[in-house]
């Protein structure tokens, strides 16, 4: 029996939110599916959801006043498989280096791989993971969205190094 929980700290930054939660999960991060959600209610911010299998418990902070609806929405997105970006999930730590699509599907909780702006992937298509794989809940499936990469490979849409949104350039 898996329990889905949504919660919220009014985080502003996706990466910082993820970092905080991964620290909190510690060794349990490979046993849960934990996601960030970009919500616009009551205003733009980052919320969390987590799917906890039996026997796993996490001490979560209370949801502040005014964010209960957002926390519930995050939970609903996760439960229905319609939204959320997973940063902790079974198999995440195995997704390093270059792997085939088949490897990714067998090693981790990721259920499908799509290619944006390119030909569909085959089981043999090589994925340059860049050691940073963040699948999304889309249409009920934990989906890794990729882009064409060097040498006919594909790579996850989200890059490990991003220019912070509010930086210069």
């Amino acid at each position, binding site marked *: 029996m898996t329990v889905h929980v949504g919660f919220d700290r009014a985080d502003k930054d996706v990466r910082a939110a993820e970092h905080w939660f991964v620290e909190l999960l510690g060794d349990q991060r490979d046993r849960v599916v934990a996601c960030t959600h*970009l919500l616009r209610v009551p205003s*733009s911010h980052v919320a969390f959801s987590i799917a906890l299998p039996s026997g796993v418990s996490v001490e979560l902070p209370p949801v502040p006043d005014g964010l209960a609806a957002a926390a519930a929405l995050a939970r609903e997105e996760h439960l229905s498989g319609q939204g959320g970006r997973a940063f902790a999930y079974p198999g995440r730590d195995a997704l390093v280096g270059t792997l085939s699509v088949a490897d990714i599907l067998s090693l981790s909780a990721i259920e499908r791989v799509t290619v944006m702006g390119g030909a569909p992937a085959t089981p043999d298509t090589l994925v340059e993971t860049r050691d940073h794989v963040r699948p999304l809940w889309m249409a009920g499936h934990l989906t890794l969205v990729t882009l064409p*990469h*060097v040498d006919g490979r594909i790579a996850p849409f*989200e*890059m490990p190094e991003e*220019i912070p*949104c509010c930086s*210069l350039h």
Partner: protein
Amino acid sequence: MGHGHGHHHHHDEVGIGGGSDLPAALDLSTPDDELRPEDRSRRAFLRRAGLLGAGVAAAGALGAGVGGGAEPASAHGKDDEHDHASFNGGGSFKWLAGDHHIHTHYSSDGMYRVIDQVQHGRAHGLDWMVITDHGSEAHAKIGVDKVNPEILAAREALKDTLVFQGLEWNIPAAEHGTVFVNPGKNELSVLKQFENNFDSSVKAAGDSTPANEALAISGLNFLADAVKRGKVEHALFLANHPARNGIDSPHEIRGWRDAAPGIAIGMEGAPGHQAGGLSKAKGGPGAARGAYGNSPSANSFPYPLESYRTWGGFDWFTATVGGLWDSLLAEGKPWWITANSDAHTIFLETAVRGNSDFNELGYYLDPVHGGTVNTTNVDFWPGYYSKTHVGATTDSYLAVMDGLRLGRIWVDHGGLLAGLDMRVRKAGDRSKDGGTPLGGTVSVKKGTALELVISIDLAVLPNWAEFVPKLARVDVIRGKVTGKPADKDAFTTPNTRVEKSFEVGTGQKKVSFTYALGRAEQSYYVRVRGTDGNRKGPGYLGVSVDAEGPAIDVVGDADPWADLWFYTNPIWVETH
């Protein structure tokens, strides 16, 4: 190339009418024919810019979707002397190449003096440039003042180059934008006041909240007021790298355009940082073309993930046929595109910053020779790769700003074209300089047969990568004008598609295509793009809309010289 621009004197045109604190040109209780000639001229200018009269709030060339019977403010395309003509704005233009997005050592991520950028831009073929250092606390306190003497000195040292002062505005609740003004005695004070009051970095107004969105509109209103009152002769705003972080929502863009028509005129169709995609295997930075390598954040509008990458070097808003740009054009209102360098630090540069701590001084000391070649910098010099070509009536600051405001703009990468002229004219019209040029509006009776003529001077000289680019294909894109959308966050329109493609033969210097547009039954616009044909893929909205569009750029392996495109702004057809 412009030479002998001569003097650019600009007088303070504020005239105080009797009993009114309004400048005479603004005081509509004084009839046009009672104004002094200079005030009459200013009033005509303000009208054309959409800054005067009842049409301001609803400025748009076409009546569709514009309510209240307001007189259209002719925010584009209608030259004063042709206001009443069915076909307007013929005649020849000087096509002046420029770049409205350039950084110097007054940006914490820049390094060059103004003269470094201007010398390079000039050498690479630019006639006009806008210096746009980042709005920031350091810039608002120090840089905005200190850059001005450098700009004045550059104007003096290189007299045939137009150097505007502007800034890169951190738009409250949104991305960055270029803001610049016509040179004059108040250029610095207007920009400084604007930055201190409306920059989101200075005002801590970055989050996507309604209050911050309103602050952005207030900033544009401030610029409109500065122009109305003659503090500066003209001010322009363009949204930079608009899709990069997903934080320019469609309703914000519509809001800027509608708040300040004639000032908020468009967006970068293609961002700078075009060297970013050169692969590491080939000695490049191995990053994202255009530095478009991000993903959604808390402040992002829910755009699809495809919008976060460039397509053929262009921003997804522009590159998607039937996408956000077309959804704006389908309203019948102007929104133009440009292409720029965003030059901060140049690919293969050997110079380094003169000091390492920007915060000590508010700028970097003059660059010094560093002795090693930097292969991680992602920028090209102004004019080296991206150019914004503006049809101006003279070699002057105001004429460049007018050309931009009127949408007489086409853009290219890698010197793909040597020149372009595009007109819509009555079918069979062969008169010299006949027809309506880029950015213009042709107003015709329903049933009038029209044709589009595109004349292209092909590149005959090598570009700055030392090869002669070859244009392979030209696409004609047409969209219906359907008025204001029900949803102000709409970012697609169903009635725009690639309608015709022309193959370009080899061995010619000039090609001309005439395309029969048929009898005009309703208002529409037509725009053109072309490519070297090296990379193509189905457009985001599918093959029925755009079968051979630009392909999404591969992060870490996108050679910008091997994927060249040009885009024009539209010409409008209005039926009555």
